């Protein structure tokens, strides 16, 4: 599995993670090309359904980026996102994908270096976990 390149989807709040990613780019920081960023109006908009859909469509790992707790632009969106992520992690455990493939991170828009760090850490984590059971072809059993 040495050549395994995980496919990772980030559902990121427009106000923090998305700006942090922008900053990481402006700072010329390297982070893995495995991550694909989807802009959300707020992390709280991230529904259980889209998280599942990401896995169903081939993601090996997914994470949600919301503002620092207490700093949500919409007051409580990130707290709600946290609850939804917790719910979907449990669901992923039940259906055999593994809840550890989904996480939530809290960033602020000034945390460009941290954004790159999170992307690297999560990519490494998923690389160690290996491909999602859905992406292993016929030998997943």
């Amino acid at each position, binding site marked *: 599995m040495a050549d395994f390149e995980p496919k990772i989807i980030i559902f990121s709040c427009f106000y923090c993670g998305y700006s942090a990613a922008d900053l990481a780019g402006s700072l010329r920081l390297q982070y893995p090309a495995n991550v694909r960023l989807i802009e959300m109006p707020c992390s709280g908009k991230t529904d259980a*359904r889209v998280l599942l*859909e990401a896995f*169903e469509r081939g993601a090996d790992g997914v994470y949600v980026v919301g503002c620092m707790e207490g700093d949500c632009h919409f007051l409580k969106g990130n707290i709600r996102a946290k609850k939804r992520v917790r719910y979907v992690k449990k*669901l992923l455990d039940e*259906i055999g994908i593994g809840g550890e493939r989904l996480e939530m991170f809290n960033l602020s828009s000034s945390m460009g270096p941290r954004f790159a760090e999170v992307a690297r850490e999560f990519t490494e984590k998923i690389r160690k976990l290996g491909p999602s059971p*859905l992406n292993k072809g016929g030998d997943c059993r």
Partner: protein
Amino acid sequence: MIVAEQKPLAEIDKLIGEAKKILVVGCGGCVTVCLAGGEKEVGILAAALRIKRKKEGNPLETVEVTLTRQCDPEYVQQLEKYVTDDVDLILSLACGVGVQYLAERYNKWVVPALNTKFAGGSIQHGVWEERCGLCGECILYKTGGICPIIRCSKSILNGPCGGSQNGRCEVNKDTPCAWQLIYDRMKALGKLDLLLEIQPPKDWSYARDGGPRKVVREDVMIE
């Protein structure tokens, strides 16, 4: 509304068995409001089942449909075009009524995805509580709008009983004593004298006695 709760995923998976193609049918009524069986829950459940089965190497095809209501024949009829020969079973995310309506109308194996719990309402987002015992003969006018039939653990009509401690029910310390609530409310409304009247035993023949109940309104019948 009727409040329902989704069965554990493992149980639903077992009910589906070896089916290859299923209709996942939501209901736009009560179960949408109590976040158990609306369009969104249909999407999440169907995706979870598909992923589980794909992982097991036994892919499942799902067709997602959410009817306006599953307890009305005219809406149940709208499912007809989706009930094709290759559909192995119908998974209904309605209350027990909807499941039965689908089973009556279509010659398919119909399984419930929810457990129907009670008639109640939400007390905060994500929390629902039983409020009506569906006893068939409302007595809320006697008790200040608080139902002793369902909110009193003993359903007594001349309460409170000796188990009422500091306004709580002895059955569960989290449950307020319905008769304490009734007393407090009647006192606040200046109607304590109404409680002096002894209530005779309730006529339960309006409730679950004598088989399924029926309401007939000739004035609105078409035929």
